């Protein structure tokens, strides 16, 4: 299966989004799922261009509203494999409430957040995960607020699968493969340095270490809460280490499995119901 399109990419040369796209393609093309069983949703920002580069159905939606669209797709047809792509602006600013409630609902879909810690498509304004002191033309006095730790937030909100990876083909492919096996809401944050507006985060590449290889027990909530404290998104010191991989994974009741109406639906979902 090939899920590429012939649309010419408009990401900047060398953008880590290319790595993410390649990882997503490898994971999906080898997933054993049919093209019409997989659906993608994107928000607004550089990440959202991925919608045009994947030959899969879905919706290139509004800023911040990826989670409710994904949730709605599952309610319309629970048999679909749904992947939502967001930026940090979508997931942590404009649509933060949806991110939290998605963790709480535990509907079976995958939320992938491309976190470059900056609004890039609008030319470099700070987001809720930008570090203190960051300056751009709109913030000449510098950012004054401490960045949000999204992994900690997702753990606190009850997400049943919480992961973070770097924008590396292999890491992206592996984590999506794991997420496709998981039943319930999967939160995956991808650290994706923006070469134009936030290039200092390229340093992350040499700071990351693999949680699973280091013996982290992903079913241990307390251990996960400790691990999220190791990196605060604000400062990269010489001894900073950024854990990547699956922080937490546990089986919880799945939203759609608790509604008898949805359990009865066939492969087409409600579309297949004739009245």
């Amino acid at each position, binding site marked *: 299966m090939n899920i590429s399109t012939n649309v010419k990419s408009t990401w900047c040369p060398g953008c880590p989004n290319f790595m993410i796209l390649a990882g997503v393609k490898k994971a999906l093309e080898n997933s054993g799922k049919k093209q019409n069983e997989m659906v993608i949703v994107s928000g607004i920002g550089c990440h959202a261009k991925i919608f045009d580069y994947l030959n899969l159905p879905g919706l290139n*939606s509004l800023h911040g509203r990826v989670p409710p669209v994904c949730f*709605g797709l599952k309610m319309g*047809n629970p048999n*679909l494999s749904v992947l939502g792509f967001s930026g940090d602006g979508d997931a942590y600013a404009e649509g933060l409430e949806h991110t939290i409630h998605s963790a709480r609902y535990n509907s079976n879909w995958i939320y992938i957040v491309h976190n470059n810690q900056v609004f890039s498509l609008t030319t470099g304004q700070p987001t809720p995960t930008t570090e203190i002191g960051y300056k751009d033309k709109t913030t000449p006095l510098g950012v004054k607020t401490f960045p949000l730790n999204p992994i900690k937030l997702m753990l606190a909100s009850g997400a049943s699968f919480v992961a973070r990876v770097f924008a590396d083909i292999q890491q992206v492919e592996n984590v999506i493969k794991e997420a496709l096996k998981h039943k319930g809401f999967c939160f995956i944050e991808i650290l994706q340095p923006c070469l134009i507006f936030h290039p200092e985060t390229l340093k992350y590449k040499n700071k990351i270490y693999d949680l699973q290889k280091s013996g982290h027990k992903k079913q241990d909530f307390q251990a996960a809460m400790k691990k999220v404290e190791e990196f605060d998104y604000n400062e990269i010191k010489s001894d900073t280490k950024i854990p990547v991989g699956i922080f937490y994974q546990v089986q919880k009741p799945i939203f759609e499995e608790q509604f008898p*109406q949805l359990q009865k639906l066939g492969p087409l979902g409600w*579309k297949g119901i004739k009245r």
Partner: protein
Amino acid sequence: MRYNILFGGQAGQGPNILGEILGEALVKQGYYVFYSRDYQSLIRGGHNFNVLTFSDSPIHSNDSKIDVLVALDENTKKIHSTKMKKEGIILDGKHENMYFAGRLFKLLCLDFETLNQELRELKKKYEENLKNAKLGYEEETKNICHVKNQKNKIYFLNGSKEISQGAIESGLDVYYAYPMTPATPVLRELAEKQIEKNYLVLEPENEIAVINSAIGSAITGAKVMIGTSGGGFDLMTEGLSMAGIAGVPLVVYLAQRPGPASGVPTYTAQGDLNIARHAGHGEFPRMVLAPGDPIECRELTNQAFYFSQKYKIPCIVLNDKHLAESFYSLKEIPKIIKSQKTISLGKFNSYESTSEGISTEDSKRIEKNNIERLKKVWDIEKEAEKFIQYKNFGKKNSKNLIVSWGSTKGAILDAIQGLDTEFLQILYMEPFPKEILKFLKNKNIILIENNATAQLGQLITEKTGIFIEDKNKILRFDGRPFLADELNLEVKKRLN
């Protein structure tokens, strides 16, 4: 004959249930009943009242003058006794609500078994209710009205229930809503029947999630409806715009209450016609349908499903608190049409996109997409002509013409009895039936609306070029519905 009974008391004392029991019993006897609720935004205490009007001929509204006042507390007596008719009767004293049911049934010469039947159907607290009802029935000595079986087959209908019924009959698959008065009764009604009728009802975290989830479900091919009121609808407008560009079928139930902002939550108004017609940025096709009674609630909800699926557009059913929460008795049988599921999962886009759903900034494509959206508007206008977009009542070809829309219909129908005037009710607000121009020409036009700025008046001027004189606008904007007797006087003043 036309009797007005007012039930008043504190929230929690149960004036609602009294009226519903009597209304049900009267309708079974073949009487026409109109029953409305006036309640405050609180759960216990305060002052709530319900007015039940009944007659042996069709009625659609309440009057201001009271024949029987049932006062469950002293406050009710204080507030409403000034509106009593000369021979009016006040039922009061410290009693349970069903005691008053007993007295009322006796007063109207309804036999006790009729009441017993209603109490049985209530199920809750049957023994206790029966005891209180018996006591009231025994203690009442007067009778004012001999109710006898009229042999009419009448349905006791509520606006919210008929909206729900219309959605179910149209093949509803998923209903999303966030609680907000006065749209909540539809949420409650649909939630209750979801297993029996096999559809899904969900309450996401806010109205933004409601509309975006609805769009997600709709692109899988499901038939989807959402419900809200003013403030909630404001939050949905970006989503509405996305449904517009992406070509997603969506039925939006919008139940009006007085704004701006939180306004007056539990009262009534027709202030949201303009926002229903214009909500959402950019230019895209939509429909706005405004029912004036429960049968129309059912029919127009059904038509909203038909048009939204056929043209892949958002379609708004514009209701208000008065129609959503009042009970009507009507004889008509609604006409229901079938609609197809037209959506297949593909690439949908909130950006301008190619026919493959790929985002585009190409000028030719942008122009083409706009023309396609315009074409939908024209096609819808054409097809809508086959539907009942407006209705005429009253005296045909009178030189006087009342124009209105939505829930004011009931009070107008009752108010113009015997008057030299025609009444034109508009049901399709978008697309607007421009042919009504033929009725408006050279007429003394009287506009009646439950808002402060005459929004239908503005729309008529926009679409037909006809101006309605300010002195001929009867506008009520105190959160209350029109009452037939008061409206009758206002209309008379303006007749030629």
